């Protein structure tokens, strides 16, 4: 398309689409008037603008009529091309409040420059965050006054957003590093100077904040001689990764405080620079002190359990031999042995409550004396009778693991004896087991009533009584006194409390 006014207005040559549009525009209704009447200053600045590839606009005259070049078109978005020739305050009504002070300055003769200025534009029909780098310059006309303004500008929205995204990504990585559950540190150079450490690392070293920029040897002096600096040296020298598990480390975690034993899972990863040379070590790992201590505790428990099992087998072996010596028949032996083994088993149930994760145990079962007496006595009678035939009572008292077995066997022998010859051998017989604590002694009273009349105390006590006596005196360092009353046996037992807590 060729335009016949072109010959008259040489200053409007070129300029691509916008040059063409300006040439074809009907300027008669504009305050600027037709181009042939434009002042030379306006002609010059429009010519510069049209022939530049840089986004530019000119606003001229009393209404600041808006002229722009091809480079400026994308900035206008959907407003192009209708905006041509309209007043500045109309075409940029959405940002007029923001830019008006800058426009006023230009019209007063003062140029301004802005880098990455944030403007919310509605150039495409919806609010958009945009950023611009631009300069507003006053343009003087032939009278020496300000005829209008000129602007060279560049939209920097994409760059600003890109920079923000990078910054955000860096922050995210920094947060990940800082908040990682494992400890991390970057050490630089042959002296292993702390470059960066995260929160977990600071926690490990007891919140000493002054490590950055200092060599490990100096920042954590207690580390020397524990082998870690040697491992770091080796990593720097050979480039080999080091992985250690449950490594003991002693750290002085409080200034002036005692050194503390911790355990760590550790990785030393040499860092190479672009040239391939080793420039430092990335140290990472976990403070596994709690895990290691728990494992050690478990090992101790297992060893303890092993000893208990061995001991139980030894006791059971003794029971078999001993029961065989007194039994009158295999059946007699089986009954007696089963009774003793069951008592041992029930005592063992009570002992193993102190082991963690014992399954299938109800809350009311405890290792208290009360629970023990019930566990041993109640199997000797029908459930329905138990409440009326046995009276159990005394203050709460915890019995130690070693003593529970002994006490259980004592009570079992007494109950067996009562079931064979005493109060529990007849339906109407009763047993009371009552205890009290006086000073550092437990006094336990065993009283049988309603059984067969006792005319003379039994002459020979037999193995059962010998067992009871040995258990009470030899093992629990207690004493016992039999009182064979006609109406039933009464037995006074006494134990030092410190033994029972074993």
């Amino acid at each position, binding site marked *: 398309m060729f335009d016949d006014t072109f010959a008259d207005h040489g200053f409007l040559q070129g300029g691509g689409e916008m040059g063409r549009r300006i040439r074809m525009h009907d300027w008669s209704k504009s305050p600027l008037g037709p181009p042939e009447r434009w002042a030379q200053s306006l002609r010059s600045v429009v010519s510069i603008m049209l022939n530049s590839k840089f986004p530019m606009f000119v606003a001229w005259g009393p209404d600041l009529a808006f002229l722009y070049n091809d480079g400026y078109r994308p900035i206008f978005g959907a407003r192009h091309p209708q905006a041509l020739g309209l007043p500045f305050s109309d075409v940029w009504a959405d940002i007029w409040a923001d830019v008006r002070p800058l426009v006023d300055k230009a019209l007063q003769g003062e140029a301004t420059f802005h880098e990455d200025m944030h403007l919310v534009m509605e150039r495409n029909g919806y609010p958009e965050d945009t950023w611009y780098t631009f300069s507003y310059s006053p343009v003087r006309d032939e009278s020496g006054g300000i005829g209008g303004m000129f602007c060279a500008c560049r939209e920097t929205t994409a760059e600003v957003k890109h920079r923000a995204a990078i910054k955000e990504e860096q922050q995210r990585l920094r947060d990940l590093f800082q908040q990682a559950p494992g400890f991390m540190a970057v050490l630089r150079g042959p002296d292993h100077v702390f470059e960066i450490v995260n929160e977990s690392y600071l926690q490990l070293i007891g919140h000493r904040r002054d490590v950055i920029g200092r060599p490990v040897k100096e920042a954590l002096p207690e580390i020397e001689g524990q082998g870690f600096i040697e491992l770091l040296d080796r990593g720097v020298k050979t480039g080999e990764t080091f992985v250690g598990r449950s490594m003991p480390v002693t750290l002085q975690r409080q200034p002036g405080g005692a050194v503390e034993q911790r355990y760590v899972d550790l990785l030393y990863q040499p860092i190479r620079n672009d040239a391939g040379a080793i420039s430092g070590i990335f140290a990472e790992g976990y403070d596994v002190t709690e895990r290691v201590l728990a494992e050690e505790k478990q090992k101790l428990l297992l060893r303890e359990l092993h000893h208990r099992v061995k*001991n139980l087998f030894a*006791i059971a072996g003794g029971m078999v*031999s001993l029961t065989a*010596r007194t039994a009158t028949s295999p059946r007699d032996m089986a009954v007696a042995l089963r009774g003793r083994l069951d008592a041992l088993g029930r005592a063992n149930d009570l002992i193993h409550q102190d082991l963690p994760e014992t399954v299938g145990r109800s809350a009311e079962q405890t290792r208290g004396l009360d629970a023990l007496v019930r566990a041993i006595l109640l199997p000797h009678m029908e459930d329905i009778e138990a409440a009326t035939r046995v009276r159990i009572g005394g203050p709460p008292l915890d019995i130690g693991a070693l003593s529970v077995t002994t006490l259980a066997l004592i009570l079992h022998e007494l109950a067996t004896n009562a079931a064979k010859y005493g109060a529990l051998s007849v339906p109407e017989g009763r047993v009371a087991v009552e205890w009290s604590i006086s000073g550092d002694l437990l006094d336990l009273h065993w009283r049988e009533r309603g059984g067969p009349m006792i005319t003379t105390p039994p002459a020979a006590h037999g193995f059962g009584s*010998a*067992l009871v006596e*040995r258990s009470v*005196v*030899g093992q629990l360092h207690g004493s016992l006194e039999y009182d064979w009353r006609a109406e039933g046996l009464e037995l006074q037992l006494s134990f030092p409390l410190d033994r029972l807590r074993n």
Partner: protein
Amino acid sequence: MLDGAPILICEDEPFIALDLVASVEDAGGRAVGPAATVREALALLATQEVVGAILDVNLSDGEVTPVAERLLDAGIPLVVQTGVGLPAALGDRIAPDAVFSKPVLPQKLIRRLEDALAGTTRR
């Protein structure tokens, strides 16, 4: 056979102790004890002569070490049964084959003691 030889028995576990007593008697020996504590054992040694001993390591008032040392010093043969090993102080004074891990048959302990007694008589 032990031929009436007095044998000290140190064992705090009643079933094991009484079984040992009966087993020593079965073998023709005479049981001294059983002592459940170190104190009891030392008191027995102060008043009675023994020619051999069967010792449990952990008695109810502590390790049997003082009793074992008294016997070793006097050249009296002994056998040991233990659930936890031997105390360090006794480690190199007692022959490994005289140390038995619980549980162990009383007859086995007595046989080893008889061998040791035969050895001392021969010497």
